[in-house]
């Protein structure tokens, strides 16, 4: 067990927890947070990969992920606000009009 292995397994674990959270929680806000968490996990795996292959591409990609996440979070929160304004609830199960 050494440093890179640790990073890989840690990152994987965080991603799995993030996904579990996304599916298990009913609150829209918590889903967003868990999604953030899994993204962090992905970044960790990216950095571990860049260390493993001794180049910087992984790190750069994770840096760009920071930017993208920021942009995405802005829009996500905005949509969340609109939803709340319209239906006064954050429970995901209520937003299911797009059914077959």
């Amino acid at each position, binding site marked *: 067990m050494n440093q890179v292995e640790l990073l890989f397994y840690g990152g994987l674990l965080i991603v799995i927890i993030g*996904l579990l959270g*996304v*599916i298990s929680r009913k609150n829209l806000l918590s*889903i967003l947070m868990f999604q953030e968490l899994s993204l962090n996990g992905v970044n960790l795996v990216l950095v571990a990969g860049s260390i493993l292959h001794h180049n910087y591409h992984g790190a750069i990609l994770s840096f760009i992920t920071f930017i993208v996440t920021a942009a995405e979070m802005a829009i996500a929160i905005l949509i969340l606000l609109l939803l709340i304004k319209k239906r006064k609830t954050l429970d*995901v199960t209520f937003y*299911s*009009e*797009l*059914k*077959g």
Partner: protein
Amino acid sequence: MSELFLILFFPLVGFLINGLWGSRLQEKSCALIGCAFPLLSLFLLTYKTAVSDFYGVSILFTWVSFENLTIDFALKLDHLSLLMSFIVLGIGSLIHIYSTKYMHGDQSFARYFSYLNLFLFFMLLLVLANNLLVMFIGWEGVGLASYLLIGFWYKENENASSGAKAFIVNRIGDIGFLLGIFILAFHFQTINFDEINRAASTANASATMINLSALFLFIGACGKSAQLPLHVWLPDAMTGPTPVSALIHAATMVTAGIYMIVRLHPLYMQATAVLPLIAVIGTLTALLGALVATVQSDIKRVLAYSTVSQLGYMFAALGVGAFYPAMLHLFTHAFFKATLFLSAGAIIHALHGEQDIYKMGGLAKKMPWNMVAFLLGSLCLAGVPLTSGFISKEAILMHTYSHSHSYSQTLTILLLITAALTAFYISKTFFLVFLPSKNGSEKPLHAIAFAMSLPVIALAILSIVVGLFHIPAFMENYLNLAKSITIKEEAHILIPALSLSLSAFAIAIAYLITVKQIKIVPKILEQKFYFDHLYEKVLLSTLRAFCKRVLATIFEVKIIEAAIWSMRDLVLFSSRRVTLLTNGQIQWYVLLILMALSLLMVWWFYV
């Protein structure tokens, strides 16, 4: 040789003229055209046969030629077909003249004559055919003409349906005829009469093929000549005008079956298994026809059933191999049956359409000429000595008697009984119609034109003359058909004696019955042995019910349509199931994605 086609096509020209422009011409010219063309072809025929040796085959064109079978449209004139064409044209022309007056005043006069000429054309085609196919074309054409003529007064539905019945029963026979042609075409690679006859008598012809083809051709003959199983159409064919019954259902069309068998008699000589069948069916039909005729009240139906029984006689003769007596009986029967029908027509015409013999009476004085003709005709039919009927019937009875088969004795007895019955019902009819009786109607009679009584008398004389001046002997060597039976010497005296006593006894009973007005009608005879019932109620209705209920509903709708609609339902059902998958929950979709991902990973890494 091409004059032969001229003779054939004259009636066709008559048919076309009357058919297309008949309605424009008035009655007189239609009648003229109608009678002119058959007389013309009769005259041409007599002139040609008298002047030059006219016999032989003349081919118009090859109808079709495959590599192992060529069929050409050819006519052939030899003694047999000359005799038959004389009957057809002779009696045909007389009946044409007769019907000019009989149909006087009928508004579709031209149509009647065009149909009659069409019938003559097809009958001549049948008679003069050189191969089975041309005969079959004539065969079907004659059936078609009889369908048109039976259903001539198509206003009443009943006439049209009896016409259709005649055509359908003929068609059943024709399917048999076709099968016979195919078997012959397959086996002998030809369907010309003389080639078949020659090939049949050679050794290499297989017995089963000959028997099969003979059987099927006999079924065709049964259909056309109204033998036992397929005889139901002839009595119903009486709904047509009486001259039609005289021409078609007495003299010419119904004899086509016998003519065909006589034309192929070498083949039938070899078909040892089929001959007994023909004899048995012939006798049974004769017996049945005579029995039912005794109880008929309609004069035309009596004559129709008597035709059925006389045809039975001819087939019995064919069955025992007596081809010449059958032809002779056919020849004489054509004349005296035509006389009977025409005089019956005159009677009906006179009594304004009354056909029930029990309502007629005392016509002897009012219609003397008719009475004489009817008397002569019924004498021939009854087989009174010195008449032509007697000679031909005796010839048949002697041949059946001296036929060397175990059953031929029983056949002769049955035929003798039929002869007695024939004498009974024809004399009963004669006495009922002509002897003075109280239930005769007093209405003034419709005047009988000379043109109607002339043919009647001419035919009466002919039917007597044919029997006398040893014409039968001259005809025997003229036709020189194959003879296979030597008459036993005791037959010469036994048969005439027996038949004479029986017919005399029957005439006596008939006289007694008419005088005492006894009218006993046994149920089974009255129902005509339930044959009509069998065809109408049993066969046709079950066929219709089967098609309607089983095929139309169950098969068509329940099985095939249901199968197709069920495919549609299957698609609908499965699509409804799939839509349940998308239930709008985001987490369900994430789960689906993850499941897919896991499956993908498993497949990637481990499969």
